[in-house]
């Protein structure tokens, strides 16, 4: 069958991401299978859980990124959340005793960073606010829960994180005014 060509010729360039994914998929899968097997074989603490989560973090943040709303706010928050979860797991599984103090401080750093990034590109980022709202909300909630559980320990990191989250949320609400309500309405719609 002879086809009259009416489309542009194929370009020599490969799709970079597709090529990278096709190559890296197999080492990732191999590592994901090998880690738990080796862990079970040699025994000891469940370090493979940390390895698996780290692999997932690299996969989702570098290789197979978000398909909707890939922006500075969402990516910063995603990174901070992964770091906090990994730190917590390291504490629980490998070296206990410090995460309850360190994690809220990392979270606090994430709040400051994401709020600064939000306000330095306000007009654009105000349409990308959902991850930040959830991040601040969980900052307040998490701090309140932690304070009620560990009130006899060193609790200032939670006070700092919780109050900063609340402050940032208030500042964002004031800055956005009506837009904040509009944004909430569309972000939480069920239509």
């Amino acid at each position, binding site marked *: 069958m002879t086809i009259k060509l009416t489309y542009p010729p194929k*370009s020599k360039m490969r799709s970079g991401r597709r090529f990278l994914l096709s190559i890296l998929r197999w080492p990732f899968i191999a590592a994901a299978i090998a880690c738990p097997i080796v862990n079970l074989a040699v025994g000891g603490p469940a370090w493979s859980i940390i390895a698996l989560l780290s692999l997932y973090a690299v996969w989702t943040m570098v290789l197979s990124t978000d*398909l909707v709303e890939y922006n500075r706010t969402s990516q910063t928050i995603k990174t901070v959340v992964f770091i906090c979860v990994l730190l917590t797991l390291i504490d629980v599984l490998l070296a206990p005793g410090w995460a309850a103090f360190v994690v809220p401080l990392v979270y606090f750093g994430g709040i400051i960073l994401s709020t600064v990034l939000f306000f330095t590109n306000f007009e654009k980022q105000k349409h990308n606010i959902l991850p930040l709202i959830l991040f601040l909300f969980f900052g307040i909630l998490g701090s309140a829960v932690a304070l009620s559980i560990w009130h006899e320990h060193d609790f200032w990191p939670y006070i700092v994180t919780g109050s900063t989250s609340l402050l940032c949320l208030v500042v964002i609400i004031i800055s956005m005014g009506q837009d904040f309500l509009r944004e909430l309405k569309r972000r939480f719609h069920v239509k």
Partner: protein
Amino acid sequence: MEKINIAFYEFLESLSDGEREVIQHFFSEFDINFAVSKAERRRFRQDFERAIVALCERGVPLSEALERLSLKNLGGFYARPSIMWFPLDDAAKIYPISMEHDRQQMFRLSVYLKEDVVPEILQMALTFAIKRFPAFATTLKKGFFWHYLDAVKKRFAVEEECTAPLGAIKVSMSGSGSFRLLYYGNRISAEFFHVLTDGTGGMVFLKVVVAEYLRLLGVVPSDRGDLWDIDETPTLDEFENTFPKVERAKSGSGFVDRRALQMNGRLSRRRPCRIIHFRMNSAQLREAAKRHGGTVTAYLLTEMFFACSAATDELSGEINIQVPVNMRKFYPSKTVRNFSMYCGVRIPIDKVISKDEIVKEVTEQLKVKADEPAMQEMITAAVRLVSSLRYIPLVIKQPIAKFVYGFLSEKSYTTTLSNLGVVTMPEELSRHIERMDFCLGPMAVNRLACAAVTFGDTTMFSISKMTADPSFEEKMLSLLESEGIEAEVEGSEYYDH
């Protein structure tokens, strides 16, 4: 960019003082029409400058060019910040959930003009026409429960087609659109992510853009017919989710189906890896359909059953061809959002023997499965499903829906035939249009998808291929030719590396 500015300044220098003053006056109100960033405003201005030069180079007097490009055509669209948003319609909700990096539910509509496209004028046509389609001037966003479309006021750029068609649209960045408008030689193509619209809605949009393009070139129809007027104010019913408005059937069904045969051939990495069009005389096609006692759709489906049989080594099992059904014919609606459902025409492969019998069987199945009661049941099922999932956070819904839709749903059919039917344009505009085509986008499991559209006396039957195996199209062509239908074959190279 520099080159373009130089061209405009050279053009200015060639004008008289009076004409320069006219241009200065034209741009005096420019800034207040664009409440966008400085860089974006500069790009808009350059579009206008390029269009003025392009029109004048075609011999249009300056005053006439400025009149055609009048800022009034913007209708204040870019002068206001964006506050609108649109929930996804019930059919569209699955698309962002099930998409992948290199695979989106896409389709493409093209208009072939009798002359090469003037890109500068096409850009202005899009800039002027987009205001009539506020749901298209949007960016996809992620809500807590569902995705939605957020209005965005930006310059939607036309692009020269330089890569394989129907590639995924990058919808992840802030403000990125869900459609692209392309040109290549004499062809204007609109590629849509299905989240925005269906074939009917997409065609309304493309017709408006082409009409606006031709208006800018001086072709004005005396009677617009069903062509939308870009100066009219958009109304809610044009962008509504019409599914919930359909009266519910007593029971909802139609989504789950048995597995169907798949054609053979290794799936390509790049999908679709090739586009093939059969350019046919619509009268010959109608005549062949009439000879066998069916409609054009039934006849094409019949030939497809034979071609599918030739493209698989299986000797038993059922071939199931999915046929999208436009709901507007049962429930009149002006919406340009998705408002179509589908049915499956299913025939065992060992029964694909006599053409006349297959036409009869297909016609009967279409009569039952593509009729209002069946469609009403399917809509009811869709609306119920969406309603039952509405309070489940997206983060939970997404992985489940992705698996179910991407893996299971396509396995229940062999291929698809979407026939948009006869598309018309006002007489004066038709004189400048050669033909149209319609292509479906990538599939996960199916080896190909077919679409057809008729404009004037030309029917374009398009095959979007997901495999290099040429069995289907070769058989299809020989079947059509054996019926006396002359088909010119056009298309793309094989794009997979």
